[in-house]
């Protein structure tokens, strides 16, 4: 068998299982080395995008997809399209607002859906309040950009109120 990237004999036969479905690679020593010594943290974004694209192509019309792409997180403002493109989420709340799209992706990556490891030391209700802070700060910045200083100062007061609320009790 010949190497997939040159004419030498393929001495390395690699099964790549990390990018969705198994993929057979047949490479000569030189190209196998090159392949196996790629970037330390492999470019996750493209493969993630690939898995996502596969998933979304199932049972959705182009129109539905376009609509999904425009959906934005109410907290940080990231659109689904932006996430799909860069492979990075915008805030913790994305795991809630894009849950329907993320769930199958997470199963695909981890084969599991539930965390069983170390628990957070804090009450989950703390997280909800913190999430509001992300939204309020963003809205305040937008108000300042729009020169709506009245709104900005109201938002600043709201932010202070949350920031100054007593630290969350531990379990």
């Amino acid at each position: 068998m010949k190497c997939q990237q040159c004419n030498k004999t393929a001495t390395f036969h690699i099964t790549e299982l990390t990018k969705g479905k198994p993929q057979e690679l047949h490479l000569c020593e030189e190209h196998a080395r090159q392949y196996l010594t790629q970037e330390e943290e492999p470019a996750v974004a493209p493969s993630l995008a690939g898995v996502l694209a596969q998933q979304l192509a199932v049972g959705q019309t182009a129109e539905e997809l376009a609509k999904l792409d425009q959906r934005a997180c109410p907290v940080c403002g990231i659109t689904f399209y932006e996430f799909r493109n860069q492979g990075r989420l915008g805030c913790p709340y994305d795991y809630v607002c894009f849950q329907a799209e993320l769930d199958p992706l997470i199963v695909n990556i981890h084969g599991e859906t539930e965390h069983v490891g170390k628990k957070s030391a804090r009450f989950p209700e703390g997280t909800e309040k913190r999430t509001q802070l992300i939204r309020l700060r963003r809205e305040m910045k937008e108000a300042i950009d729009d020169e709506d200083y009245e709104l900005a100062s109201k938002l600043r007061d709201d932010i202070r109120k949350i920031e100054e609320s007593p630290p969350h009790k531990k379990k």
Partner: protein
Amino acid sequence: MDLNELVSTSGEWLRGSGPESDIVISSRIRLARNLAEFPFISRATQQDRTEIENTLRDRVLEVQESGELEYVNVNDLKVIDRQFLVERQLISREHAESEGARGVAIARNEQVSLMINEEDHLRIQVMHSGLDLQSAWEQIDQIDSLLAQKVNFAYHPKLGFLTACPTNVGTGLRVSVMLHLPALVITRQIDKVFRSLQKISLAVRGLYGEGSQAMGDFYQISNQITLGKKENDLVKQVGDIVPKLIEYERKARDFLVRESHENLHDKVARAYGILRTAQTISSEETMHLLSSVRMGVNLGLIEDLQIPLLNELFIHTQPAHLQKLRGVELDTADRNIERARYLRRHLNKSNGDEAN
């Protein structure tokens, strides 16, 4: 922190001690965490980044369990100093090359580093020389628990710790072991090994040298999955495979000594010869040859060299280290000349010859 103080040593990951350290170079564990009240990095404004950095820096420096910590403002560092920290494995390449407010707290003994504003707000890393995953895990677990009492980490009751990329969600845990596997490479068995590892969803990666060139037969094994398993099980999954890899590598070395002694000895001796006499040499070739020599020393084919010196040469001949040791910035051609000079001086000194 005065980085120049670190230059003359070899750092934790190439200290060359600890269990099985002829084959296992280092054990490394990292945890990804984010503050609940800020957006992830991709949506963070400059002001968010600054506030995240300030919040985390102050809390991180309070955690005594990390050892004596020093904070380095990575954004203010010169390019060569960032590269120096990458070579040292104290920050990631991504952290070095990104922009905006970011930094790293580094323990004096270089076993602990806490990167702020990397892909996630916080990346905690604990690295121990040799095969030492369990104590590395215990240390990082303790640091994480202490920090979790001081800040609100983004957490979801079902998904666990939330990360910027869904590939890290849940535990946020990456367990890796760096191995030196020259005999498996020579005997062309390494493909078999990689295939079997990928079947149990472990990732194998080469160690990066300068640019995109692989560094002398060093391979890193790590877990792919971060969700749905307990941290201890993930540590165990990687830890359990290492003795098998050590055994394969030792068998391959025995085979080479037994069946191909002249060829092996020749390869090692030639590598040593080139390193002691070359007048200009690239980083890639240096790594490749040092790898052969390292195996030769471990097999008793070279008797006048010690592993600690070799490990030091691995790191000191990296581009940023070389330039910092010399005290000037050098272009590639001058670096290659300086590297050859450095190697001649240290390898010939060790058996009494005069360097030139």
